[in-house]
């Protein structure tokens, strides 16, 4: 179990019932299955006794066999786990919706557990009617439910200087996609009478970092939600309970969690999180600021280092694509490192600023292959190559790395993260 790759390979071998790759002998799990008395023609043991009662799990959990499907962090990345990130296990997920317990978490001062009865949202500054709202107050407003992806600006940042992360969970796992329910921010702006002089809004969280970001008024009035539900249930503490901002398509850091205050003003606040952080240092020493939108990105999630190929022959290649500027228009897949491309099929419905699942069939002949995906969004933006990105950005940048990603499929079916020319 310690060697993860071996474990996955063994599982894969067990599933394919003996199509063993690279000389791996039958795993313990595979042998145990054969000797279990649960395979045909024997009747499985779970059919010969009663299961548990309906009250056994009043709030259900995944079955024990799915215990590997969890968020993980990268210990060397940050000084503490309170100001850190844990990654979504994209390799284990189907479709586009991220289960609440698996949504990546980026905290700057730990996860507070906020009592919803004692939580308030204050709206003030350049407004006619400064107001304080309880959760009960907020839930009386007209509501809306929308599916949006949320991506940390630093997603992929560990690979800026070269392939470093052997696994799609770490290379791309700072993204999740949920159905959010709440009141539109524009409703609250109208309710408090935001002044025509207001050009910016400061959003502040109730965590130990008192996270603050400035958001321009046009975006605030457009599609931003003040949300209390995520995939049909109340937010998880680590995703902002009881209230958070959802700023569709923009750096996740602007979707302030544990939202406690919105202040309207004429200028941006130039907070630490929009000057010393979340800015892009270019090769010439100048930095770009207010680079909010997460531009189009895609990645193949199957196969990937965590999900090697089980054998020659048919393989459905599948992955995720998204754009902070709108809808995914097309995803192309290459099996030869970018020399030739073929369009993948997109799972309907394709929603704006949402994850989109793509799939393409592949016949693997057992030879070395370099798999890539490339997304084009509805604005015409084409996902760049890493070579193109470095030309424009140098390698001092941290955020917004959305380059085409390469998986090398080795002849034994294992998969490595590499960069190609």
């Amino acid at each position, binding site marked *: 179990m310690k060697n993860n790759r071996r474990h996955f390979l063994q599982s894969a071998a067990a599933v394919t019932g003996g199509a063993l790759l690279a000389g791996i002998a039958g795993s313990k799990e595979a042998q145990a299955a054969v000797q279990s008395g649960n395979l045909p023609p024997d009747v499985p043991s779970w059919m010969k006794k009663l299961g548990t009662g309906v009250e056994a799990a009043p709030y259900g959990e995944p079955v024990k066999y799915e215990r590997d499907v*969890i968020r993980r*962090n990268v*210990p060397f990345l940050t000084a503490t786990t309170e100001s850190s990130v844990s990654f979504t296990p994209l390799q284990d997920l189907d479709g586009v919706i991220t289960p609440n317990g698996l949504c990546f978490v980026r905290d700057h001062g730990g996860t507070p557990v906020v009592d919803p009865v004692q939580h308030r949202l204050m709206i003030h500054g350049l407004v006619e*009617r*400064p107001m304080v709202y309880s959760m009960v107050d907020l839930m009386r407003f007209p509501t809306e439910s929308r599916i949006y992806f949320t991506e940390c600006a630093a997603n992929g940042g560990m690979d800026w200087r070269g392939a470093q992360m052997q696994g799609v969970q770490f290379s791309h796992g700072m993204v999740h996609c949920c159905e959010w329910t709440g009141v539109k921010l524009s409703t609250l702006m109208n*309710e408090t009478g935001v002044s025509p002089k207001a050009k910016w809004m400061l959003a502040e969280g109730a965590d130990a970092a008192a996270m603050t970001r400035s958001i321009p008024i046009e975006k605030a009035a457009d599609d931003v939600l003040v949300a209390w539900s995520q995939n049909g249930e109340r937010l998880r503490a680590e995703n902002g309970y009881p209230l958070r901002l959802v700023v569709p398509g923009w750096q996740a850091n602007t979707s302030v969690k544990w939202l406690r205050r919105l202040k309207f003003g004429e200028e941006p606040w130039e907070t630490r999180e929009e000057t010393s952080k979340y800015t892009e240092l270019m090769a010439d020493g100048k930095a770009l600021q207010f680079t909010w939108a997460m531009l189009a990105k895609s990645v193949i999630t199957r196969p990937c280092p965590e999900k090697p190929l089980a054998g020659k022959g048919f393989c459905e290649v599948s992955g995720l694509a998204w754009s902070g500027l709108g809808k995914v228009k097309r995803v192309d897949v290459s099996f030869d490192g970018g020399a030739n491309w073929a369009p993948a099929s997109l799972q309907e419905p394709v929603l704006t600023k949402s994850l989109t699942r793509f799939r393409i069939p592949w016949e693997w002949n057992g030879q070395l292959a370099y798999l890539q995906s490339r997304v084009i969004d509805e604005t015409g933006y084409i996902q760049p190559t890493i070579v193109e990105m470095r030309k424009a950005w140098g390698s001092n940048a941290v955020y917004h790395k959305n380059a085409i990603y390469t998986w090398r499929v080795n002849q034994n079916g294992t998969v490595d993260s*590499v960069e190609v020319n």
Partner: protein
Amino acid sequence: MLKSISVLAVALAGALAAGTATAQTYGFGQPATPAAIAGWNIDVNGLSGAGLPAGRGTVAEGQKVYEERCASCHGVFGEGAGRYPVLAGGQGTLTADRSVQTVGSYWPYAPTLFDYVRRAMPFPAPQTLSDDQVYAVVAFILNLNNIVPANAVMDAKTLAAVKMPNRDGFLTSTWTHDTRPDLHSTACMKNCKSGPVQVISDLVSLHVTPEQTESGNVGSQVEFKEAPAGPATAARPAVPSVTFAQVQKIIAQRCAVCHAQKPTQPGFSAAPMGVMLDTPQRIKAAAKKIGEQAVESQAMPIGNVTNMTQAERKLLGAWIAGGAK
């Protein structure tokens, strides 16, 4: 029924045509009193200093607060312990291969420092410093970066007047698909490469990915075990288990703040003993000495002020054992 729907449609169309000014209001919630606002209204505008409170603090007062409340993470000289943020130095590195982004080298506005320290620091106990203490710590950090003199007094007026070295280092532009610099205009479909596919970066040598066991993470930064034997059939470049880039990063962080032509560590105007470790050539030439001082006797860094870890010493040792290439 039909009639009521059409009435609603007309009402909606009217509301939309009139814009949000006439949209319905609901009257939920309570007015925010001036007292309630005053308690929560802690933001300071980084550019103008608007919102800076009354109070003042000196560099000397700040040093005391800093040593008690900040230095255990950020280092006595603002050099940062472990992965905690480096606060001082780094000026002139923004175009270097490894930039050091600190208050002095990167932050554009001084009042932002007050805003951030007051709302979020000290990390384990935010919003426990008085405004005077925050002014003092800000004065000390600015002095560490040689931005204000040792006798500086920071208050709402003087802090707003501080001009940061990287003030003009930021470009703000709303970025869209057609303003980002790496745009390319075609999505080639066939025969897109002039030559064969070449791997330009391969992570097999790094061993930095955490193991994905059911219990979450195991291990820490880098375990310097032998590279796993790759599949015999897959083409993999021969790579040493410790790269020079790893070594260079450690030296830059732990040694070159003093051992450089122009030391960034306050109090050092020249490289101690004339040993400079600020270029790859100089680091490689000094490999033997690095081994003696930082790996074997561990006399360096002095007092371990830059917090070199045992893992880093081990890595340096492995690099030297492998020929220091």
